[in-house]
């Protein structure tokens, strides 16, 4: 789906590895920015969920990365990129309930295996590109049409 329209806002948020206490901050900030732009509440809600799950994935499982927020008149895009370790089998991580979370992450309430499925369910398009040993890039697109929900 080609993007239409100019960029209303572009922001880059670094997500450090091993900073679990701070994880979730980007999602809060993204929601605040979107609300400030007058983005539709349902789009803010979906973007908040997508961003939270993506942010947790970077914070919990990778060597760090970043999130780029792009807001256009017709859509919100969230780009997640990290420095590895990469995902060996993308079809597998899309399966609800599948998780590679270690025990310490499960004790913090993560590892339900719903991260990628929740991201997919709250996006109109979710593209995952990954290379083992190098990293993962995820592009989530949330359309702002009022009839685009679900």
């Amino acid at each position: 789906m080609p993007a239409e329209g100019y960029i209303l806002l572009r922001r880059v948020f670094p997500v450090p590895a091993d900073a679990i206490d701070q994880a979730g901050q980007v999602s809060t900030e993204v929601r605040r920015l979107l609300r400030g732009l007058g983005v539709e509440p349902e789009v803010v809600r979906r973007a908040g969920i997508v961003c939270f799950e993506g942010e947790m994935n970077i914070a919990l499982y990778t060597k760090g990365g970043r999130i780029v927020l792009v807001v256009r008149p017709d859509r919100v895009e969230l780009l997640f990129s990290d420095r590895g370790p990469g995902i060996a089998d993308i079809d597998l991580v899309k399966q609800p309930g599948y998780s590679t979370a270690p025990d310490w992450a499960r004790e913090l309430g993560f590892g339900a295996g719903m991260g990628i499925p929740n991201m997919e369910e709250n996006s109109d398009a979710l593209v995952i590109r990954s290379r083992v040993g190098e990293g993962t890039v995820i592009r989530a697109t949330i359309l702002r049409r009022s009839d685009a929900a679900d």
Partner: protein
Amino acid sequence: MTLDEVRELTGAVVLAGGDLLERQVDKGCGADLLSDVLAVTEEGFLLVTGMVTPQAVRVAEVMNACAVLFVRGKRPAPQVVEYAKGAGIPLLATQKGMFEACGILYGRGLRPTEFRHLSDYAG
């Protein structure tokens, strides 16, 4: 019911948002796995959880939850409470366990939230 009724029914103490207890709540979600909370498809619910990490409060914020009720006598760290105050999310804490707290509230009319079932997922 109001949050104040939730407090009274579960014998909870209020950690944050003492001025927001007149908020109405009619649905609840009991979960410790945060992605399960993120699978809820509506807003304004009471989150009942044993998870006292900063992310429990952030998930409540992301989901526009009405409030968080911590169970089994658990208390979040002071900075988590401060964050909730700033975000306008009331925090309550009860000594009762998850099963009992949810049972009491369900028995008094709090209903379950809608959520995505596994079969709803495309993957």
